[in-house]
């Protein structure tokens, strides 16, 4: 396929708000997407989980928007909306029929500029309960639900901003006050710490004018403070870190993670291609060897974290059958990861072909397009990177994969979390 040609237009308001516009008039849909440069990494000790609790508070109304109106108005026009909090950022997004673009801009600008007048204790208490239920439902009441907490704890030293999870500690959530909400808002929810992307069916110059009207009068704010703790880490773990869990889980599972360069490093492309070679598709190494041929794993999952702060992670996990010994799974994973050094040019081409299809399928969704553009603007000041994503991956050579396997994917840079079922029937 020829190169991607997603249109990208950049602007910046006087208050520092960065704007990305990407027009596509083929379907009557428009996506509004905001990335704020704040996430769980900005939480000091004692305040874990606060960025995410704050994200919930952003839906509790603002000076001109009563509580629940945000949901109600967007749903009323048939749109959808949500927000997510992650290590390095928090995003907010609406997808609406294109004739309702202004509604989304009004809602997003009102909470960026006028959130605090609407905050009260009752709303905070209510959302605290919702967050606690979210934790119970998605973590505490789930088999393997504590894996990310365990993984982050051994992958990053205590002083590192990634040492704790996004959901955080419920004790810290309980201790959060309205003052915390106010100071977090004033510190991080400022235009100069945000990117606004509009993608889809709209007219660029009229839309830019609308954005100026709605967001232009919001005060710029100060630069955000440095990260708490010590974000520096060594390139590798310097050994194999382990956590063996006997728990009420249905099947044994081994999670293996490796410290990698951060998402911003040019060599991160090698990590991404390695991940695809290992676990993307049914012709991938782990599926072919562990699932299909050796039948020691019921399923395998591989993942790369696109993390910005000093070091990221490559993660693989294998879920065994009832009778599988966790040690067998672990050994099999280690062997296949070592064998990655044998990957040849044609195998790399397979991985890239599949990545290409997945990227184009992702771009069919206006909301996804907007989300990627916001990310590239916030992280790299370069939304046009979206059109060069595949070139970046195509440039990866088998030699680079070999080098990565040798320097980063061995026993000296490995975290292993093993889940062993309590009841082995």
């Amino acid at each position: 396929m020829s190169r991607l040609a997603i249109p990208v237009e950049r602007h910046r308001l006087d208050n520092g708000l960065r704007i990305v516009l990407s027009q596509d008039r083929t379907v009557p849909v428009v996506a509004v997407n905001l990335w704020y440069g704040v996430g769980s990494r900005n939480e000091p000790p004692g305040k874990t989980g606060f960025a995410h609790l704050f994200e919930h508070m952003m839906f509790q109304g603002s000076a001109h928007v009563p509580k629940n109106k945000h949901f109600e108005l967007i749903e009323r026009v048939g749109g959808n909306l949500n927000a997510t909090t992650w290590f390095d950022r928090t995003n907010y997004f609406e997808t609406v029929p294109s004739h309702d673009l202004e509604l989304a801009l009004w809602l997003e600008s009102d909470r960026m500029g006028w959130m605090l007048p609407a905050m009260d204790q009752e709303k905070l208490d209510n959302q605290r309960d919702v967050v606690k239920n979210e934790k119970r439902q998605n973590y505490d009441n789930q088999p393997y639900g504590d894996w990310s907490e365990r993984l982050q704890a051994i992958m990053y030293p205590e002083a590192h901003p990634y040492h704790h999870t996004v959901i955080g500690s419920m004790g810290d959530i309980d201790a959060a006050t309205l003052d915390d909400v106010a100071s977090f808002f004033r510190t991080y929810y400022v235009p100069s710490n945000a990117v606004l992307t509009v993608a889809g069916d709209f007219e660029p110059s009229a839309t830019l004018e609308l954005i100026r009207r709605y967001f232009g009068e919001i005060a710029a704010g100060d630069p955000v403070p440095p990260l708490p703790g010590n974000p520096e880490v060594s390139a590798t773990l310097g050994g194999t870190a382990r956590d063996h869990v006997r728990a009420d889980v249905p099947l044994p599972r081994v999670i293996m993670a490796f410290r990698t360069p951060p998402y911003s490093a040019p060599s991160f492309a090698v990590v991404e291609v390695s991940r695809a070679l290992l676990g993307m598709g049914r012709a991938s190494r782990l599926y072919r060897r562990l699932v299909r041929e050796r039948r020691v794993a019921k399923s395998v999952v591989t993942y790369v974290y696109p993390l910005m702060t000093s070091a990221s992670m490559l993660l693989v996990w294998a879920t065994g059958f009832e009778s599988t010994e966790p040690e067998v799974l672990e050994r099999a994973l280690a062997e296949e990861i070592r064998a990655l050094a044998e990957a040849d040019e044609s195998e790399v081409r397979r991985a890239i072909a599949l990545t290409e299809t997945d990227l184009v399928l992702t771009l069919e969704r206006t909301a996804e397009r907007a989300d990627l553009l916001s990310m590239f603007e916030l992280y790299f000041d370069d939304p046009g990177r979206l059109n060069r994503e595949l070139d970046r991956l195509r440039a990866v050579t088998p030699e680079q994969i070999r080098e990565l396997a040798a320097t980063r994917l061995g026993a000296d840079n490995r975290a292993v979390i093993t889940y062993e079922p309590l009841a082995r029937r």
Partner: protein
Amino acid sequence: MSTLDRTKAPASGPLRHFRFPDVERRPLPNGLDLRVARLPRLPVVSVNLFLRAGEGALSSEGAGLAVLTGDALEGGTERRSGSDLADGLERIGARLDVGAGWEGTSVTLSCLADRLPDALPLLAETVLQPGFPEEEVQRTQEQHLAAIRQRAMDPSGLANDAAAARWYAPDVPYARPVDGTAASVSAAGRDDLRGYADACYRPREGGLIVAGDVDPTEVEQLALDHLGSWTGSPAPRPDFETEPLTRERRIWIVDRPGSVQSEIRVGHVGAARSTDDYFALSIANMVLGGTFTSRLNLNLRERNGFTYGVRSRFTFRSRPGPFHVSTAVGNEVTAAAVREILAELEAFAGEGPTSDEVAAARDFAAGTFGLQLETAGQVATRVTQLVVYGLPERYYHDYRENMRSVEVEAAAAAARRHVRPQEVQIVLVADADVVRPSLEALGVGPVEVTAPAG
């Protein structure tokens, strides 16, 4: 520049023209219903081969056979191994997936549009010449059994399975998990899979739906070249009644000691896809529990903080699927949550929605429809529904208008007819010692506790 009035929500601009994409229908001589939607937006294509090979037609002994057979297709063909098949597809960036459900089996293919001439022959080979090698069949079976085991320990999955068995009488297919039970899956052998594929993977009554940046004439030629010599009709599908297990309201606790939350399912037998009040009922459910600002979510999440979320839904199938409310709540508020759910159901069945609520739901339904047709895969899925449920060719062209014309009386009538609070079965996966006393104190029905296996 005029001053901006922030106190009022901006009004909608002029409605943009929107039309469901045109679909060309070109049935093949062997009975396969080829439909092509041309979407020039991005150079991708999404293909869906729908076969009348569904779980709803299987007896309880054969439960899971359609799912198992579908999943085993990736094990390879008469000509190439599973690994070679995967490699052949992935080298051209094609993704092929097989999924069976109550109505049939769908083989879906996604790839860049210019790869379709290479990818479609591989799809055809996968379905028409399956190899079912012994070791691959065994592997698929092991994976299924492990998945069944995983689901039994996942509170949400366990609640779904337990609830289905309390909503339907034991001989109704919908009473069981769609992918069968450990016993039925263990009993199937390679010959069963081969026999099933031979009997049910047939072109007549099936559909080949292609959506994307393609030319319908070229697609038709490709289909003729690779699927044209395929013949036959699928095995007949027995009809079945959807009797409930009981019409007396009861509480069933599946005991999961140590749970920090209770998974709750409240429901009964609902409506078929062919129900004559489909649009009114869909609108009614949006008001009750189909959206974030629904009555149930505003009550349980926003007002009471009991839960991260609560939804109600009608699962429309060719025979009446379940209507149910689902949520997960903390132990200490379990009984209160059940009480609130029942109160909402009673108010809704009794008084129905208000005209404001119906107006909001209509707007939501009309707007969201256009938002769900962005991708080739979404369009292909909609067109496939036409084939699956025998809906008129222009059904989705009129869909938005039909949703927009639902009146409050019709929605209220649908709520009265299809929501019956006195007949619901209330199923919980919870720590029985903790939640039983307060549930009994509610006095809404007898309470029965079972072990997870029961």
